[in-house]
């Protein structure tokens, strides 16, 4: 199937991306080429096949419910664009 411009805009909104009007035709065309290539796998009959989510059939490891990390907020927040009183700053959300 081929995507329309409106569908691309909807997907972009979901992905928190913007497609500029002047690049929208090229984005659509290349995206549809990729989706056209992907389309070839849809016709294959896979009834009864167990989906493979992972390369190796291993189960998630469990560990004791104990604190293992130390407080590193100073090091981690040192790379943040905006911090005040140990809090990450973002544009105003609530008036």
């Amino acid at each position, binding site marked *: 199937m081929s995507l329309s411009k409106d569908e691309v805009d909807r*997907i972009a909104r979901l992905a928190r991306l913007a497609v500029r009007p002047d690049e929208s035709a090229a984005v659509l065309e290349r995206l549809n080429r990729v989706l056209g290539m992907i389309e070839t796998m849809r016709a294959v009959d896979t009834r009864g096949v167990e*989906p493979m989510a992972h*390369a190796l059939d291993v189960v998630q490891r469990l*560990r004791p419910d104990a604190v293992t990390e130390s407080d*590193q907020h100073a090091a*981690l927040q*040192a790379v943040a*664009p905006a911090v005040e009183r140990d809090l990450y700053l973002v544009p105003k959300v609530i008036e």
Partner: protein
Amino acid sequence: MLNATVAELSSALAARRISSVELAQLFLDRIERLNGVLNAFITVDAEHTLKEARRADASRARQDAGPLTGIPIAHKDIYCTRGLRTTCGSRMLANFVSPYDARVIERLAEAGMVTLGKTNMDEFAMGSSNETSYFGPVRNAWSAACVPGGSSGGSAVAVSARMAPAATGTDTGGSIRQPAALTGICGLKPTYGLVSRYGMIAFASSLDQGGPMARTAQDLALLLNAMAGFDNRDSTSVERAPEDYSRMLELDLAGLRIGVPAEFFGEGLDAAVRKQVEGAMRWYGEQGARMVPVRLPNAGLALPVYYVLAPAEASSNLARYDGVRYGHRAQDCADLLDMYVRTRTEGFGEEVKRRILVGTYVLSHGYYDAYYLQAQKLRRLIARDFAAAYHDCDLIMGPTAPTTAFALGAKMDDPVQMYLNDIYTIPAPLAGLPALSIPCGFDAKGLPVGLQLTGNYFSEALLLGMAHRYQQASDWHLRVPAETPL
């Protein structure tokens, strides 16, 4: 010394024929001379390198040195390094300095290796030509008009042009093996879970795997010995007893069964590549190995399956780049949503945005079963094909890439043409299998050809032994690129 292998440098350092500081300086000088044209490194910090080299020399003076102590290595800029910026080839992380080291970086530092710098790569490892990097394309040392492959193109060229004796890479759909093939070096993608993903910036987590790049299979084994190992900070790290990946280097080839899948020799394979690969296979035959025809009937579906699964995982992994905790943030935003959208639109390049859009689409309501779930089922069929083939053979052999290096810009307008570069490298990571590429000749233009060996789970030692045997009898891997003489 610039032309020496890791194994040779190890002996030279042990015999005190050279110090680690002298060695590091040799490579730093070469990087300074060549990087302007090749653009293999994004970040080089000579002081940082020399400090590590002095530490290695001090360890040796204390009789506390291993086989890799004092040997320089270049790291793909996808591995987080404390105190040395980590960009992942993206504007999003152009000024990012990680507060911690990746486990691979820690392990190689614990082995005494000296960091030469951070190598260029396709943005977020998404690309097959190293042209999607925010820091500009990398050029191939065999022909500066050609791409080096990708995404670990900077690491590949650093090793190929003798700017580093070895480098780290990562492979999701071929990002170690394809650039290794296109630049005439060796690269190994280990079994999924062998090398820790902690601190390795995520692209598609069920496929991403780190591995070594060097000029010989013997060097790959030495490096893998230091890189592999269980890590409780990586939830998919495999718990196994440590092994010596060098133990089968003197492998007896007689009686080994080499699987040859017709699917890897079909339409799209360049005639010169086929000729060189068949030449290498003939050599193995002469040593007593047996060629066994095998079938991978679903191999043709690997490309579409990969381009559903990898973008789906990427769209989720890259959601973390929101301008709040680290990385790029757009200025003068109207509100929070505006900040998210503009930060991401400014911070990501075209290919990354395309894959996020594809991934978002295949995971979106109403399409999940038709795309994502269907791709996961086909992934199972592809893995089963390999399992069936390994009943009849010990490993699978074929070309690494369908062509040799192509011209810069040649495939940038058509993403599908670009994706087809990885047609032979994508099946192994979908199944989680180990695979490596070694040089096996040149085409008429003098561009290197890669031979791919794919093994069963945890068969790295066998693959490395197979590759080492070939390298004892050939000199393709010793040739120095025309544009970067010593």
